[in-house]
């Protein structure tokens, strides 16, 4: 009999690979038009993002942040909430850990300091997500709109706080002071020197753990079941005994906390001070990752690594090929999201036909 649906292996691997190739093909065309050799560029990209251990380690460093923002967007999406506010929540998370560190970093050892800072960043992120969640649950205001607004508000608020209160006297850069070394996330190159001198730190391991917890919570627990039911059908979820408004608020708190935790990798793992606009779009990348990874832990991981690789590889490539500015990779990110996320079934009919032909 002819198959009318693609087997799992085809839809899980063949289609994404074909889509990725299409995106890269369009990207290659653009690179060619810019006057560079696409194949050589790809080689440089892959070399510096994946093959070179230090590059790989940078890739994973960026991915760690993206896993958190991707999880933040994913969990809300599972409940049917489109949280565009991870960017602002991450920004506020940075404020949370900064406040904790500025008051405690000279007094506490790393073992206490780091967990406290993490809790504080999660709490601030959650707090920033609470109001949109509350308004959605109790007042029915669209979380999409309120979180967009909260991003704008966060930007202004953080600017105000940093410029007014956090810049150390006599400094130019609108940023907090550098934290004490106790506040630095332990780096993985301490155990694996091959990783080179990169900021890859235990946040990466925490991110992996978070993915696992997310997978179990959403896929295998009664709570996750209620969460998904809420996302799919409010009426039915209410019938099933889910407290919808509580669910919405709780999910937004978790989502905000995850976004807040994304700040830990950026701030405590790398720069060691709070700077203006440090999330640099990681919250928005989180949306792309959640959508492309279909809110599945493995998918989130793979897309986070892909985006990390693009940032790292693209960066090195633009150093070597001045004709290819870094912005090219923003464009390529968009293409990948378009092909892998929105046109995921572009090749499904063709693949199906091929499979059926082979069967005769």
């Amino acid at each position, binding site marked *: 009999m002819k198959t009318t649906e693609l087997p799992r292996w085809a839809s899980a691997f063949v289609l994404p690979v074909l889509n990725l190739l299409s995106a890269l093909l369009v990207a290659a065309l653009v690179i060619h038009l810019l006057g560079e050799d696409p194949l050589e560029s790809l080689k440089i990209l892959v070399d510096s993002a994946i093959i070179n251990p230090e590059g790989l380690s940078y890739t994973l460093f960026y991915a760690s942040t993206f896993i958190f923002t991707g999880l933040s967007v994913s969990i809300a999406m599972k409940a049917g909430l489109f949280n565009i506010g991870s960017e602002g929540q991450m920004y506020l998370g940075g404020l949370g850990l900064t406040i904790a560190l500025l008051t405690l970093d000279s007094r506490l050892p790393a073992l206490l300091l780091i967990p406290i800072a993490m809790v504080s960043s999660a709490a601030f992120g959650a707090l920033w997500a609470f109001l949109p969640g509350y308004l959605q649950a109790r007042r029915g205001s669209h979380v999409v709109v309120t979180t967009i607004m909260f991003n704008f508000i966060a930007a202004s608020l953080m600017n105000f706080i940093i410029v007014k209160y956090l810049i150390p006297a006599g400094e130019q850069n609108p940023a907090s002071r550098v934290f004490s070394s106790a506040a630095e996330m332990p780096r993985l190159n301490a155990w694996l020197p091959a990783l080179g001198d990169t900021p890859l730190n235990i946040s990466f391991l925490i991110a992996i753990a978070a993915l696992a917890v997310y997978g179990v919570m959403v896929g295998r627990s*009664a709570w996750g079941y209620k969460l998904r039911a809420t996302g799919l*059908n409010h009426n039915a979820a209410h019938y*099933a*005994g889910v407290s919808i408004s*509580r669910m919405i608020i709780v999910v937004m708190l978790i989502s905000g906390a995850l976004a807040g935790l994304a700040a830990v990798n950026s701030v405590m793992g790398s720069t060691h001070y709070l700077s203006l606009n440090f999330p640099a779009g990681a919250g928005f990348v989180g949306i792309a990752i959640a959508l492309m990874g279909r809110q599945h832990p493995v998918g989130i991981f793979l897309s986070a690594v892909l985006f990390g690789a693009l940032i790292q590889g693209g960066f090195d490539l633009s150093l070597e090929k001045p004709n290819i500015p870094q912005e090219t990779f923003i464009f390529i990110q968009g293409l990948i999201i378009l092909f892998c996320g929105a046109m995921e079934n572009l090749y499904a009919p063709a693949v199906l036909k091929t499979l059926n032909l082979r069967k005769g």
Partner: protein
Amino acid sequence: MQPAVEFRNISKAFGPVQANVDVSFTIAKGSIHGVIGENGAGKSTLMSILYGYYRASGGHILIDGQQRDIRSSHEAIALGIGMVHQHFMLVENFTVLDNVMLGTEGGFRLGAKRAAVEARLREICQRYALEIDPLAVVSDLSVGAQQRVEILKQIYRSANILILDEPTAVLTAQETASLFEILRTFKAQGKTIILITHKLGEIMEITDQVTVMRGGRVAGATATAASSKEALAGMMVGRPIESELARAPFAPGAPVLEVRGLQLDDKDKVRRLAEIDLTIHAGEIVALAGVSGNGQSELLEILSGMRLPSSGTVALNGVALPFARRRDADGLPAQFRELGIGHVPEDRLRDGVIKDFSVMQNSVFGYQDKVANRWGLFDFKRIAQRCGALIKNFDVRPADPDMRIGLLSGGNQQKVVIGREVMAKPALLLVGQPTRGVDIGTIESIHKELLKLRDAGVAILLVSVELEEVRALADRIVVMSGGRITGGLKIEEFDTTRIGLLMGGMHKK
């Protein structure tokens, strides 16, 4: 005479499901042609192919003797085919007028046309006694009125071949009668009508010819006059249907549910329920009869915890239900279920299942916390066992626990819901319209299950607009009208006229 429609070897597959297999039959011009069959027999699919909604994977359709390739509903409409779907195809926030005009606007500017169409609609409504205000917004209309809008649409478009897919599933007896009046007028005008229904009485009453479908194929065809309800039922299900179901003698136990002075005011301070007093005993089925929209749904919602009453008390086994001092009903159904109240909701797709979940996932819907271990994690083995038992005991077809429940036919979805609630062993079961849109074979098995439950000592509150069903199941009948209980009678006193009067709000002093 040339047949109006001829199906030749129509086949249609959805993935592995063969919805239609080699279907061939003809429909005579100017006749009312019944199509019956179990849930999932392929009736709606066949009609959707005729209406251009689906494309057949094989076979041809002839309209008035001409082979036609109908690729869209637009083309079907051009051929004079009209269809009233199982689920209404109305834009809810449009006026009746705009719904009728949609697709037949007659020009880019609506302005002047609107007035002309409105006048024409008023004229049609008068002629066919349709009682619809063309300027009313559809969402404000009752189900019956929405049905009339669908008919109005077809009259306005002067469809020559009219397909009606289960038009009476949601209608009251009176509404059905007036619909049939219109169908007879159509027939007199020479129009051809295809009527799908699960109610054999209606088939006997109005059709000229019947085609019976089973498993996607034509299982038989006959002139209505030459057949009987029993014979048709046998052809449909492949076995005889018992007309009278066995039940233990009426022996009610202690009162399980006691409702006292229940009132409900909605957001706009309109009183939806007034002074409801109701007692249901163990081992008793109380049927709540009435024209839909008279407060039955609200009462069911309150008793299941989905909605808070404005005042009054409800006790289950002598203990007051915990809705006092709550701001909203969020999460309350879980508590009620915990206390032993099962609930088969009236609208299964809206409330009772998650369409995108599998049958297995839906089999624990509402009971998700019961099948989790103390860490809150699911015990998948136990769930699979439970679901396997449900599929077996309630004959869910296809017996595939991993199938998306949205792909099941309505009857089979209903079996999953009822099975789930029954298997939870409730003390009180609230059942809303358990057999709406369900075929007679399945109706029989659902009725059997409910009676078995009653015999086991469960108190059951049944809300149904089908008097046939009420008669088959109830020990006691309570009639509601305008949010009040207008009267009650024992099953021995069953009397259609009296119930009709009570439904109309006539109190017997």
